[in-house]
C-alpha cells in the first residue's frame, strides 16, 4: 500500500509536470525507419544466439534495462531543473 501510494503520487506529479510541456512527437518517418531496423534485428537473432549464447543475451537485457532507467532519471531531472518556478539547482 505504501509503495503503491508513493508510486502513484510520483506518476501523477510527473505526468502533470510533463503534461504542461508541449514536446512534439517523433516524426513518423523516423519511427518507420527504426521499425525497419527492428525487423532486421529480429531476423538476425539467430546469428546473435549462435555466437553469444543465452547468458550473454540475458545480461545484455539487464544492462540495457539499468542504463535505460538511468537515462530516464537523468532526463527527468534535466527537464525539472529547467523549470524556474521549481528553483531546483541540482
Amino acid at each position, binding site marked *: 500500500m505504501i509503495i503503491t501510494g508513493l508510486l502513484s503520487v510520483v506518476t501523477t506529479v510527473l*505526468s502533470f509536470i510533463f503534461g504542461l510541456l508541449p514536446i512534439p512527437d517523433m516524426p513518423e518517418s523516423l519511427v518507420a525507419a*527504426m521499425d525497419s531496423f527492428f525487423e532486421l534485428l*529480429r531476423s*538476425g537473432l539467430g546469428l546473435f*544466439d549462435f555466437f553469444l549464447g543465452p547468458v*550473454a543475451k540475458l545480461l545484455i537485457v539487464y544492462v540495457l534495462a539499468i542504463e535505460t532507467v538511468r537515462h530516464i532519471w537523468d*532526463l527527468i531531472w534535466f527537464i525539472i531543473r529547467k523549470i524556474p518556478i521549481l528553483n531546483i539547482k541540482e
Partner: protein
Amino acid sequence: MKKCLVLFLILIIVFSFGSVFAVENNQLTKEDGKKIVEFLKTTTSEDYTSSVSGMSDTNVNKYRDYFNAMTEKDYEFIAECFYKLMESVATKYKLTLSMNYENSINLNNFVFFIYVSSVEEGYFNIGCFPNKMCDVLDNAPLRYILYLKSYKYIKISTTVNGSSASYLDMIRINIENQTYKIEELKQTSLYPKIEPTIDEETNIINIPLFTFSSGNIKYLIHNGAPTSHTEDEYQNLVIKNSNILEDKKISGAVVSDNGEKIIYSSDTDTFTYSIENIENDLTQIFIEAYGYDSSSKTLNNYPTETITLNDYLSLRNHSLSGIVMESDLDENNEYNFKVNYARLTNTSYIYRVCSGFNRFNSDGINVVNSASEYFSIAGSDLHDVLKDNYVILDVDVNKPVDPDNPDKPPVVEPDEPETPDYTGAIEDVGNKIDELGNKVEETGKGIIASIREFFTEMFNNILEFFTNLVDTILDGIINLFIPDEEMLKSWVTKTQNDIEASFGMLGYPMSFFVDLMNELASTTPSDLIFKIPDISLPGSDINFVNAFDFNVSETVRNIPAVNLIYQTYIVIVSGISVYMFLSYLWSLFEAMLGSKDVEAAPYDVLVETETNKPIGFGADVGNYSVKRKARIHRKGTR
C-alpha cells in the same frame, strides 16, 4: 564499461545487418499477434463454418467492426496477448510453429477458444477459430464477441489439433488494467491409457469414454475388433461407434506404443485403419476419438483408449476344456467338435471361433438339447485356428464331470433331513457373552479416548487461531509494503505510456531501448540457417549451385568435436559476459555510493576534480575514477 555497452550494441547491429542476406528465422514474433487481430478485423462469414449458427454476413460485419473500432492501445494489447500465449505454448511444448497468412490464417497447431466474462470466473465460450477446426467443434455464435467490450475479462485458451484433451495454456486478460496472466491448464496426459472392461454377459469390450468439459459419460462400444484379415502381416482394426447414435462423426488416431501417431483420419461412424507389420511394431493401439453431435451441436471428446492386441483373446477367459475335437478334416472338409453336455449350464450357447490376432473366423448359435452335441466348422475357417491353437467358444463349461461316465449328466442326490444340533447354539451364546464383555471394555477406552480427543482438538484450535492471527498480521504487513505483482506490472505499463505521451520525441529513445529489451528477452533460441540462393550464369539456364538451406546449428550439433569446441566457446563467452556484468554492477554501485562522499566534500576539493556537477543515480559511471580521487583527496586533507 561504456565501451562494453557500446561493444554489445555494435555486435547487435552487426549481426542484424549480417543477417540481411542469409538468415532465416521461423520464430513467432509480436507481429504474428498483430496479424491475428488483423485477421479478426477482416473476416467474412466464409472464414467461419456454416454450421455455426448465426454467422451471417451481418453478424460477421458487426464482429469485424468491433475489432476495427478498438483503440490502438487495446489493439496492441490484445495482439500482444495472442503472441504471448503462442510463445508460451511453443516454448513449453517445443512446438514448431509457422504461420501462413496467404490463405486467410493458418495456425498449423493452434486453435483459439475465446471466452469472455464480467467476473474473474465463470467464463463462457464465444467462439473459436480458424475455420478448419470449426468444422468439427461446437461453438456458440461468434457474434457474441460483439459484447466483448462490455466484459472486463477475456480468456483465450489454445489447444493442438482441436482436441480439448490436449488443452495447453490459457491466458487471462484484464482489459481494464491492461494486464494478463498466462496459466498452465490442468490437463490429462495427451495419451491416457484406460483399460477396457469386459461385459461378462455379452462378452463385449466396453471402453469408457467421457468428455472433459461437459462431464457427459458415454461409452464407445468395441463391437469386436476382429475384421477381415488381408495378409498375414496386415490387420484392419474396426471400431464401430454404435452406442453413440447421435454422434455422426468419429475421428481418431492410431498410435504405436511409443506414442508415435501413425494415422490420423476421420470417418462417419466407423473407425477403420490398416496397420502394417502389426506383429513386429505394435503391441498396443491407442485410439483418440471425438464425435460431433449435430443435433445438440456438442462435441464429445474422448480420451485415448488402449487396446492390447495380443491379449484380446485371453480377456475372453474361456478354455478348451469340455470341448472335444472329434475328428480332423472329414470327407466334407469340416472339423467336428463335440461339446460335453454334462458340463453345460445352459441349454443353448453361442459359439465363436477366433484365431490369430483377434479375428473371428466363424460364429453361430446352436441349441443343445441332447446328451452330447456336435457342431462343424469348415476346415478353411479353422486353418489358422489350429495353427495358432486358439479356439474360443462362448460356452459355459463349469459343471463338474463324472469321471466314470463323462457323457452322462451328473445325478444330484436329494437332501436328507438333519437332526437338530444344539452345539452351535451354545457356542453362539458364549460368543455373545464374550462380545458383550469386549464392548464394555471398549466403552471405557472410548470415554478416555473421547476426552483426549476433546483436549487435543481444543489445543489444535487454539494453536490454529494464533497461527492464523500471525499469518494475517504478516500478510497485512507484507501487503502494506510490497506491491502486488499485477499492480506493479500495470503501473510500469501505465508509466511507460505516460512518459511516451508526455516526453514526445524526447521519450522515443527510451521506447527504443525498452522495445529492444523486450525483443531480446522475448525471443526463444533458434537455429542459425543460411539460405544459399541459386547461382547461375546470367542470361542462361546453367545453374552452378541450386538453392538450399544450410543449418549451421544442426551441423555443429552433429559433429561431436566441433560441438565440443562450440560448447566450450559458449561457456567462455558466458563467463566473460558474467565477469563484465559484475564489473559493471560494481562500478555502478561504487559510483552511486561514492557520489555521496563527493557531494559532502568541501567545494574546493570538488573544483580540483572538476566534478562539481550533480551526481545522482544517473551519473556517468565513467567518471567514477575521478570521483574516487576526490574522496581520497578529501580524506588525505584531514
